[in-house]
């Protein structure tokens, strides 16, 4: 991978991070290609479309609100990036923190595939990442 293309991946990663921190679902989905897929480790047989992913994000806001990203670490790789972070949010039962790993594949200026790893024992029901 050339330095120029790695710069391109870095730009996509920065745009993705900003979109996630904004909690604007349209802005988040705007980082994905139309045929992108989103996969979760706890539902390995399923791949979600951007439309389905948007619904998941919107649904999350009803039970896991004021979401914020903590300790975000991004590693670039040839063809995409890896993001480690902890998603913190408020629930009716108090503040919940759930660490996660996201592996993103990038083509051009968009993300073509996302694979996310969570521990479902600490993912609030109905949260953004609960499928």
């Amino acid at each position: 991978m050339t330095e120029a293309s790695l710069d391109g991946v870095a730009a996509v990663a920065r745009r993705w991070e900003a979109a996630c921190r904004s909690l604007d679902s349209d802005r988040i989905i705007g980082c994905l290609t139309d045929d992108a897929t989103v996969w979760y480790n706890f539902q390995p047989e399923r791949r979600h479309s951007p439309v389905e992913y948007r619904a998941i994000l919107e649904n999350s806001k009803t039970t896991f609100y004021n979401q914020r990203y903590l300790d975000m670490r991004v590693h670039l790789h040839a063809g995409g990036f890896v993001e480690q972070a902890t998603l913190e949010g408020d629930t009716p039962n108090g503040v919940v923190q759930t660490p996660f790993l996201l592996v993103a594949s990038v083509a051009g200026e968009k993300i073509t595939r996302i694979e996310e790893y969570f521990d479902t024992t600490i993912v609030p029901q109905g949260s953004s990442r609960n499928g």
Partner: protein
Amino acid sequence: MDRAGCEIVRRYNEAWLARDLPAMDAFLGDDLVLWHNHIGRTFSKAEMMGFVADALDVLVKVEFRDAVRTATSAGCVQQHRLFCQLADGGIVDAPQAIVYIVRDGRIRRIDEYTDGPALAATGIDG
């Protein structure tokens, strides 16, 4: 992207799957930090090697199936299906991803991401 980190990880995991603890140890920095998402705390190298030995007592078979390694700016990420067969007949078969930070030819940090309930069959605390 430098593939050297992934080669170290490949050889480290080869040693782990071969149950060769001294060979594993040789790939790890003395300052190693291990973290598991389902436990939420870090472990030292000595602690890690302790529960690797415990794990090998109960695991009849351990495999990283369909492993994909990706070189990153800091080391390597491996995604695979963790398959374990336990002495009591229990089975673990779950997606797992591991982020390795590699520096100066040694693995310095290992962050493991697994869905906690998928590991319940092992009874291993670590």
